[in-house]
């Protein structure tokens, strides 16, 4: 039973496991596309032409690809906000609220420094405000879990509503922009506070922030003592307790860091894409991030791919509506199918083992 011949055969085993997973992914996505095609057929539209349209006018169209990347940026950060607590065995469904609170804090900080503040000052103050607010918002749920043993999956969802109404309260009230002709929006952030674009593209630098965040978290998970301990707490809290690990501190840090990342997502979306708060600001970013994290099986680097994938599906929705006359919600069907297929298919591995 002991360590004979672990070298070569193990490596090939790992390799086949990996290609097996990739094949399952592919199969799952294909299955989702097939079912989706059946749905399109039922609407009297030719599925091949629709898929062709998706290919030519979305996936190979540079401007649309830029759109996808811009959309993917907050998704990726919001997904990381699920990945980090998930590592500790916590379920953060509060990305939605943490994103909004982060953006609200950033917008408030932007107003506080003024529209003509120097870019460095505006960016620093807004980022700080966003991460502190997101972290604190998640911290409320963490505190309730640790003190009152209230499940964080419930409190984080409830706090989403509080965050939304907090934002509405502000933009319908004291933050309302008088220049917006009756619309409930906050004033646009100053020009120095807007995130610059990458070169001549339409993609703002937020994507770099998301990639760096994913890399940092990957490093923290795999190379630091904190990440190792977080894995232990998430894998078996009793083992962590018996090993004398600071379980409370670890849980708190994981959930708060999740909130920080979601707050950052809110900031990036505000300063890179929307520039002002509207009643629908940030809608679904948290929930889609949650899906993206599950699609990536809570792995930080894979989150970058899954966020891009869900962003592509979301962008496709507009095209479908315009070119094929399908309802815009059709794309939600595709998103749901992909999610269920991928989750179902890739967890077969556990059952075999």
């Amino acid at each position, binding site marked *: 039973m002991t*360590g004979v011949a672990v070298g070569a055969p193990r490596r090939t085993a790992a390799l086949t496991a990996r290609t097996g997973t990739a094949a399952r992914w592919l199969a799952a996505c294909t299955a989702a596309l097939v079912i989706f095609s059946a749905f399109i057929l039922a609407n009297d539209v030719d599925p091949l032409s629709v898929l062709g349209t998706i290919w030519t006018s979305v996936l190979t169209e540079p401007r649309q690809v830029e759109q996808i990347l811009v959309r993917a940026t907050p998704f990726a950060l919001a997904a990381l906000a699920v990945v980090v607590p998930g590592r500790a065995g916590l379920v953060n469904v509060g990305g939605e609220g943490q994103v909004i609170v982060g953006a609200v804090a950033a917008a408030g900080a932007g107003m506080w420094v003024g529209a003509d503040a120097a870019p460095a000052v505006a960016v620093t103050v807004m980022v700080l405000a966003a991460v502190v607010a997101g972290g604190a918002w998640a911290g409320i749920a963490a505190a309730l879990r640790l003190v009152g043993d209230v499940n964080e999956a419930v409190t984080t969802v409830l706090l989403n509503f509080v965050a939304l109404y907090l934002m509405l309260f502000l933009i319908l009230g004291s933050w309302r922009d008088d220049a917006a002709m009756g619309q409930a929006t906050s004033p646009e952030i100053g020009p120095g506070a807007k995130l610059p674009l990458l070169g001549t593209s339409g993609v703002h630098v937020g994507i770099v922030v998301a990639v760096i965040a994913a890399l940092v978290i990957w490093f923290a998970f795999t*190379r630091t003592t904190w990440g190792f301990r977080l894995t232990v707490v998430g894998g078996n809290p009793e083992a962590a307790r018996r*090993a004398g690990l600071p379980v409370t501190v670890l849980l708190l840090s994981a959930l708060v860091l999740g909130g920080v990342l979601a707050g950052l997502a809110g900031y990036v979306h505000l300063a890179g894409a929307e520039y002002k708060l509207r009643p629908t600001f940030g809608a679904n970013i948290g929930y889609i991030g949650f899906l993206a994290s599950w699609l990536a099986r809570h792995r930080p680097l894979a989150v970058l791919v899954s966020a891009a994938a869900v962003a592509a599906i979301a962008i496709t929705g507009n095209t479908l509506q315009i070119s094929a006359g399908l309802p815009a919600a059709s794309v939600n069907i595709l998103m749901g199918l992909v999610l269920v297929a991928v989750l179902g298919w890739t967890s077969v591995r556990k059952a075999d083992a």
Partner: protein
Amino acid sequence: MTAPSHRRPPSRIGAPPALLDVVGFTKSFGDVHANTDVDLSVQRGEVHALAGENGAGKSTLLKMIFGVYEPDAGRMFVDGQPVTPGNPAHARALGIGMVFQDLRLVPALTVAENVALSLRTGFRLRMDGLVRRIEEASRSYGLDVDPRAQVRTLSIGERQRVEILKTLMAGARLVILDEPTSVLAPQEVQSLFEVVERLKAEGLGVVIVTHKLNEVRAIADRMTILRRGEVVLNAVAPADYTDGALIEAMVGRAVAPLPRQRRPVDPAGRTLLALSDVRTDGDRGYEALKGIDLDVRAGELVGIAGVAGSGQRELFEVVLGLRPLTSGHVEVRDVDGVPARPRVAAAIPEDPVADSVVPGLSVLQHMVLDGREVPRKGVGVDWAEVGRRTAEADAKVGLDIAAPRRTLSGLSGGNIQRVVLTRELSTFSPVVVAAYPSRGLDIANARRTQEVLLEQRAAGAAVLMVSEDLEELISMADRIVVMHDGHVAGVVAAADADRMALGRLMLGGAA
């Protein structure tokens, strides 16, 4: 050993066919050859012991007979007729009943309701009739089971009798008992054996798994020993073999007995572990420890005996500081007598899989989960250094742990136990608390574990050890503390401990 060339039941001319004949059963799980060409024959009115070390393939063989697993090769005959059980329901219809190692009753239901679950009942559940039938059956086999009692309130021994009753009411003529005694106090073993004798007298066949030789000698007519999935002794009379020969057949080599000679406890030695009037609540709110007083000195090994659930788990947790006290004191001291920093104690948990194993992490990663200082490199763990220390620990403890890169959760219980033992016992700790240290280990590794614990004692540690094996306690401990229902029911010097007296204390009687 005879190579079974024939593929028919090996019946003697003129003799009636055996109740059960298994010929050439073979089963692999991936690379593991759990059974290779195994034969087993059970007569009516025979008690057949099946022995072998952990992982020898006993449960696999029995599960194939009961139709849980399908054999890769081999045939099976009941009353000389070829059969293929295929599934447990069919096996039951063939007159085969099995009591699994882990009992499978529903605690919230009554005995009668549990029996009803396993019987074919019509649309309407007629409980009164069933209760009467259970009472009859229980009387006729001397099982002493109350059909109206809730299973939750029954002891393990009583639950086992319910399981046996279930198989009998389903019409079993062959009753298979997989390691029934490992969870019982000696008195309960005795009453189980009385039931087995009764079944035998009724002409039923019984297959009983145990690796305790005194039990084999007490109950079995014939015995079969498996080693690494192969039959090494086939249907022999235990009386024809010495203990040494049987152990050698199971292990594959001779195992020296534990040395009896050891340095006596220094009566002036420092007390390293002191509990006074310790009370605490269990997980379900009732009081689990009801005023425990206990001292363990440097260089002393104190054994804890008791029926499972008498407070052993809670006792360990309060010693390790994992469970708050409702009153009293626990003091854990370092060798120099100063109150200890946290985690000066080494701990072998009661349930290593639930308490120590983190899914997905490797053996190496588990080696630093002992609460002691972890070698650091920058912001991370110095895994190369952990690897060196692990190799050193493995060489020192000698339990031959699995490769460091293996995922711990993928290993068998015995291999997990060896990793935990190696981690906890490779360095000296002033206080060692070990729950069932040799559980899940085969004879050779169990012996090595016992030696390592005695080495810790000899080095001056205060060792507190729980075991369900009285022989193990008597051979290792200086004193045996018997727990019953959260109390210390008695303290006995191991040198003059008597198994039956210990058993009476365990069940709450007087010594």
